[in-house]
């Protein structure tokens, strides 16, 4: 903290003069004064979003390079580049130019592979970052809007990834597009039309690659860039959340200053992420489209897998029973519609609106800047783990053929296992997670009341053995009791004092029931008396 006010003197250094020039035109000193030494709290989990941001920058840089050599066209050409196994084969210009980038442009393969790896890391980082936000309750007021922006970023990232890996027009991505066509066709009433408009006629047509190219390099990245900017401005403006701890309250943010510490740490971290992507691009082959061959609709390779973030849709499609309705000359393919549109629709809508649902349940209108430890909100944590389990089962079944061949299991039994596990797994996961959370809360409570086991056993003059406990230091006592313990509402609380039920009584009743489910079982924080009893009374 700079306590002494600085005296203004006309700048003498070139940097100072430049700053003065800008300040006279833009008034930057005011902003710089308050923002240069802005405090950011430190915790490893706060860098997950940074990974997403940095991989996005890497994607833009490597992507610009790739556009210089990629030809977004489905016109047919005969290949005669330096990769001889494809010599003389007819293929689209898109595919041929991707092979050329890989073999005839120096550094081209590296840029392609770094681009692909960074894309996988981008979606992964967004996902894990979002889980962090979810489990720590960082989406609560005032950050609900930023949650929705982040959610939109996730959806755009999935779309962007799918559009990107479809561009080379190789056998694997063409198969993915064929599946996408089948999915679009399953949409009732408009599906066939949407498909014809998207592909410019029948699948695959000659228009899709140039259209996807515009979507992939202009439309979606533009949206991503705009939303990321707003996302970061909000993080800056609303200030970062922090963990509870001695000296850390709802009214402050404790950490290290942007200049120099986070400039160095965050800036350095960008290069670390870029370095890791470069190592991966140099060492680990990814999407070797030359070995897949160009897309031809009657060819396929067994064991084909999409990029990891499409895997859950793949699994969902694989495990769905084959239900289809035919009536009045129309067909509804539930076997495609439900797993590929309804299931992700429900999953993603739930994700987007969760902050608002929880706010309605808790009725909490306060601002929250101190993060929840996941154990202290067992129902939310349980819901999150249930969601992860649901997603995880879908994702695993997306590789049911590989699991079957690698572990010599029956494909049919894996699929049937998935059909049950996708429903039972989340319920079980929810129940187990809540139990674990309660257990951890009890352990915390115990730590506050009785301190830590020191491992020293003493014998009293009466012959009794007991273990020395080290009392919890004040900092720990504060940290472990800083959370709220929410209470369920009872129906009397939703009626007014004369017993007249509140208006919209049905909604109130529903809310009372949901709070009962959320907060019915809870571990109370130790009271002052309990603490004094424990420390002096000598009984549990």
């Amino acid at each position, binding site marked *: 903290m700079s306590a002494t006010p600085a005296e203004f003197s006309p700048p003498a250094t070139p940097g100072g003069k430049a700053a003065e020039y800008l300040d006279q035109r833009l008034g930057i000193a005011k902003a710089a004064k308050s923002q240069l030494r802005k405090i950011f709290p430190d915790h490893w989990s706060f860098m997950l979003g940074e990974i997403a941001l940095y991989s996005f920058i890497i994607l833009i840089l490597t992507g610009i390079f790739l556009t210089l050599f990629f030809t977004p066209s489905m016109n047919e050409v005969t290949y005669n580049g330096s990769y001889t196994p494809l010599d003389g084969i007819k293929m689209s210009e898109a595919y041929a130019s991707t092979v050329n980038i890989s073999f005839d442009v120096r550094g081209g393969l590296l840029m392609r592979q770094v681009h692909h790896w960074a894309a996988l890391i981008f979606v992964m980082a967004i996902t894990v970052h979002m889980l962090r936000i979810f489990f720590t309750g960082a989406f609560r007021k005032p950050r609900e809007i930023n949650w929705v922006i982040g959610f939109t970023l996730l959806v755009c990232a999935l779309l962007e990834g799918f559009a990107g890996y479809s561009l080379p027009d190789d056998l694997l991505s063409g198969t993915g597009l064929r599946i996408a066509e089948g999915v679009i066709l399953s949409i009732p009433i408009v599906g066939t039309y949407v498909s014809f408009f998207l592909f410019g006629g029948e699948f695959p047509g000659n228009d899709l690659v140039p259209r996807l190219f515009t979507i992939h390099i202009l439309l979606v990245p533009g949206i991503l860039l705009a939303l990321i900017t707003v996302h970061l401005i909000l993080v800056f403006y609303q200030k970062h959340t922090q963990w509870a701890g001695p000296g850390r309250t709802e009214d402050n943010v404790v950490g290290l200053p942007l200049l120099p510490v986070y400039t160095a740490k965050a800036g350095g971290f960008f290069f670390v992420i870029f370095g890791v992507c470069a190592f991966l691009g140099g060492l680990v082959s990814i999407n070797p489209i030359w070995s897949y061959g160009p897309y031809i609709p009657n060819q396929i390779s067994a064991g084909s897998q999409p990029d990891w973030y499409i895997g859950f849709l793949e699994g969902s499609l*694989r495990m769905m029973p084959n239900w289809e309705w035919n009536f009045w000359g129309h067909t509804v393919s539930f076997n495609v519609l439900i797993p590929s549109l309804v299931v992700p629709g429900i999953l993603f809508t739930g994700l987007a609106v969760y902050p608002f649902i929880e706010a309605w349940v808790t009725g909490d209108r306060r601002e929250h800047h101190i993060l929840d430890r996941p154990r202290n909100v067992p129902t939310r944590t349980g819901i999150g783990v249930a969601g992860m389990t649901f997603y995880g089962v879908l994702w695993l079944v997306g590789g049911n053929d590989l699991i079957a061949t690698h572990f010599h299991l029956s494909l049919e039994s894996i699929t049937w296992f998935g059909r049950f596990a996708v429903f039972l797994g989340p319920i079980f996961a929810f129940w187990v997670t809540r139990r674990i959370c309660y257990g951890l809360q009890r352990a915390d409570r115990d730590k506050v009341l009785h301190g830590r086991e020191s491992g020293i056993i003493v014998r009293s003059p009466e012959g009794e053995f007991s273990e020395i406990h080290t009392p919890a230091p004040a900092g720990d006592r504060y940290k472990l009791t800083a959370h709220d313990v929410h209470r369920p509402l009872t129906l009397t609380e939703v009626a007014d004092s004369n017993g007249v039920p509140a208006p919209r009584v049905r909604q109130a009743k529903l809310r009372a029931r949901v709070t009962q489910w959320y907060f019915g079982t809870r571990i109370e924080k130790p009271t*002052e008396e309990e603490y004094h009893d424990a420390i002096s*009374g000598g009984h549990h």
Partner: protein
Amino acid sequence: MSTGDMNHEEEHGAVAVDEHGHGAVVPAGDPFADPGLPAHRPRITDIDEKAARKAERQVALLFVLSAAATIGFMVAYTQIPRTAVANFFPIGAVSASNLALGLLLGVAMFALGAGAIYWARTLMTDVEFPQERHLLDSDPADKADAAAEFTQGVDDSGIKRRPLIKRTLIGALAVLPLPALWILRDLGPLPGDSLRHTAWTGGELIINDNTVSLDGTKGSGIRPEEITVGSLFMGRPAAALAAGEDFNNVMAKAAILLVRLDPADIASAQERDWSYEGIVAFSKICTHVGCAVDLYEQQTHHMLCPCHQSTFDLSDGGKVIFGPAARSLPQLPITVNADGFLVAKSDFTQPVGPSFWERG
């Protein structure tokens, strides 16, 4: 900052108690009160100038390493021929250029980043300090002022007094986005009945996929005797050879597979009727979402789609026996022409590939 006034005795847990708490000093007041920020613990580099100088040298070394790798990257770019192959355990034969460029770029980036982070962690301040946070919502006076300004603005526009303007404006804005949809009409043709037809017609020669030339314009037909019991053939209509730019569109619907079954094994009467001496032709396009079915189990006559594992029984009208596909693989009726080559008797009698709303 309240770092100085904290209870050090508490911090170090100086008082030992037994498991019942005997022996503890009972803290006065609220035992769960915020004790304030703990005192800063200096790092070795804060107190030992020698350690600090060592850290400085380590940071500088990382920066030098980064610069060296950057230069190495440019040298590798120009010096390593793009066709050179490196054998790199345990990865195997890889492009030497890609390997060198990747490693050097990785070192250039990683060392620079690691140097900056190490600098921050060892030599920059690690004294945490608090900054105040304020409620985000404005104070009531500002809210009232903002509302008043807004009301004044609305009043000045006269929109409330002139409902005609308001209504016509809303109407105009409501229809304005429609052209954005209208103008997309030419993205593609209307489906019509195109999904119901393929390139197969009565007498269309079945071309053996394996005989098709590299450029896709030449290929020969199949004689029934070439297909032995248990073998699998891939076929395409002769029209595909002349399809040019439309080749993929033709294949997306017309690709077929042929197998010869023992006629006694064919369970469906229609399938036998549409076969030729036990040779049956089925659409190769999966009825689930359109992948090419490809994995044939000779003994059971099962055909599996590698995408989502829909399994079809080729000896029983292509019926679905497992997986997410709802409909049988469509069968193509076949016969032989005057030259003794297999030909289609007609087009498929139902749409091939994935279901769609108008399919019925």
